[in-house]
């Protein structure tokens, strides 16, 4: 068996590669957004695309998110496959009306005649010391809007595979990029990218028997760390990476919970009205007789995102996850 020497790549590089390959494969793929051209994006994800494909394919737009997404809708109506970059989670809100009123509804209101195959890339979440308005977890807004796929990678390989799949999808996709993972490295071979599978499947990142941590995006690494630390407590935790919040993979999640009998949902988004409530409800409805304890949530607090010097108190960490695991009614077992 030969092993290929693979240099570590960052998630940002994998995303760049995905955009590049998608643009090379399909002349209809156009990238547009603020600073995506000459600068290569504030996170450098679009680095080199304007030089390679020209400014008509990778376009610096005026600074107006509703206009960026609104014009992308028109481009998709004409048969192009736009990939829009919103510079930060909290700067995407001006485009929300276009998302809710048109992006998500166009296929439905035209009975399938006018699908909108466009991808909205949004850097999201905290942990990078960003000042106000740079660290929101906005996934719950998008999840609550029918007609969208909501996808978020947690690994370098998934960043490539899921972005390619999102761009290839004939449905609009909100592609949430965990900011704090942009510079995370992994051995990933850009010459042999992982096969691109359709969005909508979760994956078990770590097998275990005691309880399931259900998570996604920026919280996966924290959960993996927590699972390692839990061994000292005698817990063997399973970790499920959702990868896609919409469509939601009930099958993989529930199969795991039925095996372990206990579950904790972990995310940065606030708990009230956040994704964890929906996930806990779905798991409870489907796995009630397999559950040894209520499904718990470890989430950000229900507060506006904190200033950078306080954000570590807000973000779910290993200790908070282990505390939750400890509250999963283990007494009954002994």
């Amino acid at each position: 068996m030969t092993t290929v020497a693979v240099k570590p790549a960052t998630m940002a590089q994998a995303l760049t590669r995905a955009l590049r390959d998608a643009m090379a494969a399909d002349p209809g793929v156009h990238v547009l957004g603020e600073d995506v051209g000459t600068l290569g994006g504030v996170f450098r994800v679009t680095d080199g695309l304007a030089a390679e494909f020209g400014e008509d394919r990778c376009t610096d737009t005026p600074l107006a998110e509703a206009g960026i997404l609104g014009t992308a809708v028109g481009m998709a109506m004409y048969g192009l496959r736009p990939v829009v970059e919103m510079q930060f989670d909290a700067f995407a809100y001006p485009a929300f009306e276009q998302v809710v009123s048109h992006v998500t509804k166009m296929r439905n209101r035209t009975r399938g005649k006018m699908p909108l195959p466009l991808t909205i890339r949004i850097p999201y979440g905290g942990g990078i010391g960003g000042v106000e308005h740079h660290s929101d977890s906005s996934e719950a807004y998008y999840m609550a809007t029918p007609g969208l796929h909501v996808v978020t990678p947690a690994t370098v390989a998934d960043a490539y595979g899921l972005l390619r799949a999102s761009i290839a999808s004939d449905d609009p996709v909100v592609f949430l990029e965990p900011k704090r993972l942009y510079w995370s490295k992994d051995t990933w071979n850009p010459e042999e990218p992982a096969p691109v599978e359709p969005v909508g499947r979760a994956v078990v990142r770590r097998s275990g028997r005691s309880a399931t941590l259900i998570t996604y995006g920026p919280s996966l690494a924290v959960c993996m760390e927590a699972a390692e630390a839990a061994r000292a407590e005698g817990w063997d935790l399973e970790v499920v990476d959702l990868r896609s919040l919409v469509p939601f993979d009930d099958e993989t999640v529930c199969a795991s919970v039925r095996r372990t009998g206990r579950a904790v949902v972990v995310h940065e988004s606030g708990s009230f009205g956040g994704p964890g409530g929906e996930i806990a409800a779905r798991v409870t409805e489907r796995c009630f007789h397999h559950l040894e304890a209520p499904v718990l949530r470890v989430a950000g607090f229900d507060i506006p995102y904190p200033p950078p010097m306080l954000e570590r108190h807000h973000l779910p960490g290993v200790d908070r996850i282990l505390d939750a695991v400890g509250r999963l009614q283990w007494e009954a077992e002994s």
Partner: protein
Amino acid sequence: MTVMEQRGAYRPTPPPAWQPRTDPAPLLPDAEPHRVLGTKAADRADTELLRTLYARLVRGRRYNAQATALTKQGRLAVYPSSTGQEACEIAAALVLEERDWLFPSYRDTLAVVSRGVDPVEALTLLRGDWHTGYDPYEHRVAPLSTPLATQLPHAVGLAHAARLKGDDVVALAMVGDGGTSEGDFHEALNFAAVWQAPVVFLVQNNGFAISVPLDKQTAAPSLAHKAVGYGMPGRLVDGNDAAAVHEVLSDAVRRARAGGGPTLVEAVTYRVDAHTNADDATRYRGDAEVETWRRHDPVELLERELTERGLLDEEAIRAAREDAETMAADLRARMNRDPELDPLDLFDHVYAEPTPQLREQRDQLRAELAAEAETGAATAAPEGGHR
């Protein structure tokens, strides 16, 4: 060199000379709305075009009356009438080539119909059996947009995409005076001008955004003046003068097609009817004002011009009215038939493939429908061919 010496050597760099980026003068609208009918310009007008416009206006007026009547018979949930604005609606459709695109707002079903869309399909939204009743690609008409001005950036994006593909396509986007206050109006005009997209923006200034008059909407000298700030020409036209609207829009379309970029056209008109059949216009405006505008009626203006020039006789007027009656009778007959409804359609076309969750919900509704049918409760519900 010491710090002080450096300071002594310092000479402030003068700022670069300021240059105006665009000469605003050619972008400014005329002082008065452009008119053709009743002026010398009418001498040069294409008489065939005038006759066509007249027949279309008569038909358009009848369409508005018929659609309004259908609300009273419960066949339409609501109808935002364009009575009094027919010249704009008709001209917007007529100035476009088949390959061009129209982006209507919710008040523009007449423009949609004038572009060739079946009236029953154009009115589906307002009947309420689906949202968009027509295939947008068949006549290149975007879905009627209810959220104000949100369709304008679509027109810009589509026109830009066509240009990138090397296609000779112009997009004409329609919006009202109220819509010009929306952020999407600003963003669309800005993008269009920066990209020099082949788009024509037609603002029908009909005096009111539901109840709010224009002076509470904007302090701009005119809506057409807004164009100047974006670096595109603004044109002001009498929106009840069909020949003038046709001329100004044709010029704008020609300019866009030739690579000259976007134009903002303000057509000054009046919403003779209330906002919709559900609105009471007497709460915010007086009859005298409406009467003034009725005396400047687009159908009568053109009829008078054509009659005085001997281009229209009694026979031609009767023919136009008969044609309009035929259209109305057909629309009435077809709208009086109950639409076919299938509740399970609700789950189609949310996504290319329904998610597992939507399949579950579809099964749930199917079971509810079956139970309803079994208990006989379905007899009270509208007919539908359940799958």
